[in-house]
Structure formats: C-alpha cells, structure tokens
C-alpha cells in the first residue's frame, strides 16, 4: 500500500514534467537570448516553496557560468530592490501567479526597466500580465491528495530551471575547465585559484644570465637549473629575452659553433611574461594556448620577479599547496 502510494506520487510528478515538453515554446528561446545578450544578471525571486526552488536554480546557474542571485520579495520591498539594475533580467517564480508579495514588486521592477520573465502555471495571472515573457510551468494536478501542498508544480518548476541552465551551458560554450574555475574546492582548483606570486620560483631559484654571457655558459646554466630555460637580463634586472631548449636546437642547426655565439644571438626577445598578480588560471591558459611550459614573471615595468613552470601549477614542482 505504502509503496504503491509512493509510486503513484512519482508517476504524477513525472507526468507533470512530461507535459512541459509539449508546452515549451518560443518564449523559452527568447529567454535564453535575453540572458545571453544581457550584460546584467539573472535575478530570481519567489516565495515559499517557489523561493526554495529559486535558490536551487540560482546555485545551478552560478556554477555553470550564468551570473545569478536570489532576491527575497519581502526583503526587496524593504530596500533590497536597490540590487536590481536596468540591465538585469528578473525571473519571477509563482505557480498561481497571484502571490501578493511578488506582484507588489512588479510596478517597481517595470520602472527600473529590466526585463521581467515569469515561470508560472497561470498564463492569465497578474504576474503574467506584468511579464515580458511567460514560461508555462503548470501541471494538471498536484501529488498531494488534497491538492494543497505544492509537489508536482515545484518539481516542474525545478526541472524547467535545470532545462534553462543546461541550454545556457551549451549556448555559452561552457567547458569543464570553466566548471573547475567555479569549483575551487578540488586540489587543482585550489592551485588554480592562487595567484602566480604564490607559485612562482624566486631569488636564487630563477635561472638568469646577463646579455654579455656566451651561449656555451648559458647551456651549462640551463642544465644546472633543470627548468629547460634560462632568462636573459639587461641592466637593472630588466627581462631581455629567454633561451629555451628549442632555441639551443635551432642555434645548433645553424651549423655555427655554439660556443662562438652570444646569448643575444640565440635568445627569443620579448618573451611572453605575466605579472605576479596574474591568476594562476590565466597563466595556465597562456601556457596551453602558446604551447609553452615556462613563464617569466615580471613587475609592471618589466623587471624580473620570478619564473613559473607548468609543474608548479600542477603541483609537481617545488611549490606544494597546503603542504601536500
């Protein structure tokens, strides 16, 4: 008996979601376009159980790259409305569309000038009339035997929120790397949330030679430091260039004796460099994009402050995060 009742509830809720498939229309596409073209945030408001669902949708959207926050309608009435800007999109959640606490805000939201979208089960409601777009999330019946407690309707609302988040993921070409960026709880995430200055090698660990050094000496230094590169510095420690293993190979291929050359002849001038405040994530992106494993770290005027190896970001180098 008990199991049968539970199965019945699940069936009613599943049917509620399945019905949305037929009712989803162009308004949903317009909503996605609104969000993608907006420079503002997606503000979600609802009260009671719709409010709880709204908070979950906000969490999903934020973790998948759509800036969003939950606005409690009552708090909004008492000043939080100041958080809403003209560029934002206001998404109101209400199955009946007649929630007083929500509808009372609508004239003010209109006045601010942001777009209003309603997730509601009543297309003729007051909320729907105030809205630029209405997404129908209505269900035929609630699973509650008395039809009072929101059950199927909140499930449908939640499913529609997930549908929106997933469509936005695809539309914005959100990748797993982006997901990692918003979930810095993992070990790699922790490292990527650092700044370069937390990971870079400094002081005597930086492989350096002056511009006047011979190429042969530079090769010995590359070998001694074991990073596969050496930085070439000018007067006052300004970065002049970098010599990598590749530069050495190219120099050897020129068939001129390596020991007759100066570092100036073989170095790459003005190499890619970042400053110590650059997020490690950005440094990693630069390394990936340009297929390099080492980045010189310079201050705003170009003086050397350190060097960063790919292994230092990935946790295989000298730096160990949290002692791991």
């Amino acid at each position, binding site marked *: 008996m008990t199991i049968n009742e539970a199965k019945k509830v699940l069936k009613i809720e599943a049917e509620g979601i399945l019905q949305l498939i037929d009712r989803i229309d162009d308004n949903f596409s317009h909503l996605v376009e609104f969000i993608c073209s907006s420079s503002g945030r997606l503000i979600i408001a609802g009260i009671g159980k719709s409010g709880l669902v709204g908070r979950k949708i906000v969490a999903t959207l934020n973790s998948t790259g759509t800036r969003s926050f939950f606005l409690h309608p009552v708090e909004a009435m008492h000043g939080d409305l100041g958080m809403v800007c003209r560029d934002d999109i206001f998404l109101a959640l209400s199955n009946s569309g007649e929630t007083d606490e929500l509808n009372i805000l609508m004239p003010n939201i209109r006045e601010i000038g942001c777009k209003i979208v309603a997730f509601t089960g009543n297309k003729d409601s007051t909320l729907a009339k105030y809205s630029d777009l209405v997404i129908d999330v209505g269900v035929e019946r609630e699973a509650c035997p008395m039809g009072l407690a929101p059950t199927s309707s909140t499930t449908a609302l939640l499913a529609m929120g997930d549908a929106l988040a997933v469509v936005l993921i695809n539309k914005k070409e959100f990748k797993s790397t982006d997901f990692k960026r918003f979930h810095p709880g993992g070990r790699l995430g922790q490292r990527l949330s650092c700044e370069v200055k937390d990971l870079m090698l400094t002081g005597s660990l930086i492989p350096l030679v002056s511009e006047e050094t011979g190429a042969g000496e530079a090769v010995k230094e590359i070998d001694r430091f074991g990073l596969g590169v050496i930085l070439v510095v000018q007067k006052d420690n300004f970065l002049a260039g970098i010599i990598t293993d590749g530069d050495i190979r190219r120099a050897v291929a020129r068939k001129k004796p390596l020991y007759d050359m100066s570092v100036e002849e073989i170095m790459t001038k*003005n190499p890619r460099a970042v400053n*110590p405040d650059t997020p490690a994530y950005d440094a990693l992106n630069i390394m990936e994009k340009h297929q390099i494993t080492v980045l010189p770290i310079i201050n705003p005027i170009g003086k050397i402050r350190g060097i960063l190896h790919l292994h230092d970001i990935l946790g295989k180098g000298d730096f160990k995060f949290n002692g791991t």
Partner: protein
Amino acid sequence: MEPKDKYFSPPQGLICPLVSPLMDDNTIDSASLERLLEHVGRAVDGVLLCDAIWGEGTVLSAEIRFDLVSSALEIIRGRWPVLIFITGKTLRDTQLFMAQMEELINKIEYRGKLFWVDYPLYYHSNRGLPQMYLELMTKTEIPLIIANLPYLVKQQKGLVKRGNIRTSVLKKIVRNTEIRGMIFTGDLKRSFNYQMAARSGSGFVFYDGDEAVFLKNPGMGGVVAGGSNLVPGKWLEITRFSLNQYDKKKRIQISRPAVLESGTMLQFLYSLCNAAPAVYMKKILCKVGIIDSSHSYSSVESLKLSRQEKAWQDELKVFLNTYDMV
C-alpha cells in the same frame, strides 16, 4: 614605407607619446631610447615620437627631433606603427621638418606604418586651414593625424585667438582623405560635434589626448597615454577593456577587478606627472632604471622649491613601493 592608399587606416588602441631621452649635453641618448622603445613597444599599438607635451616636441630643436626620429626608426624597424610630431613654430618650419623626415624615410627605405601628427593651431589660424592641408598633403606620401590641444595653443600668447579647431573647419578638413584621425582634447560637447563633423571620413579615428579623461570616459578610437612610457602593460589592459576588445574573448568578468586596480594606479601616476609631464616622467623612468638620465629641456618652476620637490619625492616613493617598482 608602406604605400599610401585610402584603406591604410591608423592604429586603434593605445598610443604611447614617447619621452625623449636626452644626455646632459642635450644630445639623444640612444641606449636609453632603445631600452625605452623595447620596454614600451611590446604593449602599445603605436608610438608617437617627439610629442608636443611628453616628448617635448615644441621645445626641442629640429636637429634633435631629427636625430631622435632617425634613431627610433632604426630601432623600431617597422615592428610598430609610428606617429611623428611635425609641428614647428611656423608653417614653413613644419613643411621643412616634414620634408627632411620624408627624405630620410625614403633614404633608409623604411618599411612600416608611418603617420604625421600635426597641431595646426599652434602655427596657423582656423582661416584657410583646409586649403593649407590640401597643399601640404600633396607634398607627402604619409597620411596625417591632426590634433586639437587648446592648452598648447594658449601657450602661444596673442598669436592666435582660437584654441580649438572650428567644427565647420574640421568638416572640410576631413574631406581630405589623407587626414586619417584626430588626437582630441576638449569637452564632451565639442567631442560630440567633432564626431558628427567627421562622420563623412570613413575610418577616421579619434584618440583621447587627455589620459585622465579617458580613464573616466573612454572614447572609441584609443588614447594617447603618457603613462604608458612607464607601465605600458597596465595601459594596454585598460585600453583593451575600455574599447571592449576583451568582449570577444569573454574575459570581462575575469578582468574587471584587475582593471579597476590598474585604473587606480594609472590615476596615481597621472597625478604624479600632471604638472610637468615630460620632466616628471623622465625622473620616474630614470629612478626605475629604464633611462639613464632625467635631463630635460623643459623646466618646472615648482621643482626649484625644495619643499615641493620633497613632497613629490615622497609621493613617488609611495607609488613605487605600492606598485612594486623599486
């Protein structure tokens, strides 16, 4: 030199009005110039040589300017677009300098984008300006960018009445397709009128001539920012962000805090140099080791007062320590 054609548009973005490194005997310090150009060049979209304000172009003799440009072109070797300030005290001086430079450019077979920069009201009135440019541009193969800088014109007391190019005159000037842009300084209303006047000039670029204004209300073409002599990377960041060039890479959310911080730094730097841009910038560049001497043609009254000089040195110390440039 690249061939002149109507599609040859000026660089958009960050233009660095290079300070002119001098030795104590008032000759060009080539080693410092090379260091400065290599420091600046990796970030900027164009370099302005002998600029009236930052490069002391109005006080340096034609011989020193000639030396500076020839040394700089040798170092740059076409790697970045170069803008050359040609304005002299009279129209004849201007024509003469332009002719000398053009001869040099042809002689060394320079390959790279070049533009003249002229502040016409410095030596000419609004009357007959379009006609003057029609004649001037027949004598050169290099396109020109004009500049409106009332502050500079006012220094020529009594010679001219008007500090700004009249909008109706600009409208006629931009019909000359060899004039490709304008470095603008002035109020918002004038900026709007100028933009309306220049609408017929396809690809005509407006640069903000006042970096402090750009930091508050950025224009659409770019900025001539003296602060980029010291911190070209920071200025590039701000310029890219302001011209919305990061949008395409969807990096706005990542860059915003960094950009706000950079903006504060650049405002600070501007306030340090504002009273006498070339003099103070050279002092800073010398202090951080980019140029060897802070010797300058311009003089600053306030620097003679030791108390003000000390206050400035204290402020500079705070700036250098705050932004890790010691």
